[in-house]
């Protein structure tokens, strides 16, 4: 009986996770969550373009002109470096590298140093793609380095970072559940290669 209850709970959790993943798709179920991207660029022209690129890719966009403003919105206190829970909730941050005041790299570091913000994937854009700069950003925790000018194909690829976060989240839940209640089960759930957006546990239960 206990085992069945556990399976039901796992199923419910998987359904919730699937809803979250579906929220990341462009064909959204009504009422489910859109991918929210925070775009940071000091160039007015580039902000307009990136905003449009993201909206066309079915993302909700908040565009700001500086790293400082971005951190403010995310609820980070400049002095303490601590982010409060009232900050803007975003699924991805895309930032220009070369900006006056705080560079994109400095913004990246601040986000990755924050316990509450570090899970947010950060992508860096730059017109200059010297190996040193790319390495620096990737080593600093950026998911990707995009060479400007940004294209629609670049943006369409970015959505997978938000999906991956949710996928990893699901993986962690199901791995834990399996470990707790099915100790003899050696195989943690893996994603079927045919459909990367639906976890194996969901596919199995449907």
């Amino acid at each position, binding site marked *: 009986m206990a085992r069945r209850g556990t399976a039901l709970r796992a199923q419910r959790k998987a359904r919730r996770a699937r809803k979250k993943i579906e929220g990341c798709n462009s064909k959204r179920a009504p009422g489910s969550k859109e991918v929210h991207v925070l775009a940071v660029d000091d*160039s007015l*022209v580039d902000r*307009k*373009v990136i905003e449009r690129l993201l909206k*066309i890719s079915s993302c909700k966009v908040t565009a700001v002109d500086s790293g400082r403003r971005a951190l403010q919105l995310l609820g980070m206190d400049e002095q303490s470096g601590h982010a409060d829970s009232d900050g803007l909730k975003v699924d991805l941050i895309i930032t220009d590298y070369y900006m006056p005041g705080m560079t994109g790299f400095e913004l990246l570091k601040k986000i990755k140093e924050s316990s509450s913000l570090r899970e947010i994937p950060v992508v860096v854009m730059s017109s200059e793609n010297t190996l040193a700069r790319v390495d620096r950003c990737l080593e600093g925790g950026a998911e990707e380095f995009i060479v400007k000018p940004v294209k629609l194909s670049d943006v369409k690829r970015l959505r997978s970072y938000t999906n991956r976060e949710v996928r990893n989240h699901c993986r962690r839940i199901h791995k834990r559940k399996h470990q707790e209640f099915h100790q003899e089960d050696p195989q943690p759930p893996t994603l079927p290669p045919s459909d990367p957006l639906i976890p194996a546990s969901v596919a199995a239960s449907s």
Partner: protein
Amino acid sequence: MDQRNQFHRQVALMRQSLFDQGYIDEQFVQLEELQDDTNPNFVEEVVTLYYRDSARLIVSIEQALDKSPLDFNKLDSLMHQFKGSSSSIGARKVKAECTQFREYCKAENGEGCMRTFQQMKKEYATLKKRLEAYFQLARQAGPSQAASRPK
């Protein structure tokens, strides 16, 4: 050929010559891909914004070129911004002049900077005229499949 088709043909020819003559590049096409029924004038809006916004950068560069001695770091930084926006709208010839300007900054060649800057302003002004004419004709022609993102 009826009037509307004539217009569309003219618009297409004008557009093609902008590419053939090297005034615009692939990035312009990227912007066109972002145009649709909900945003039918997106490219024109971005170009208008570019000309408005970059005007102040040009003034800043002019002021910096007036100083003595020249601050090449500052000039390079200003031109980096200008080049970025120009690149974002696909302004190919303008972008090439920006690149040249930055080379002269690296070489600390003031004369080269000034010459290139004058050349850049010419290209910038020519492109503006050409694009204004193009957008005006495109508006007259009305919406066409070519102007919108393929569904």
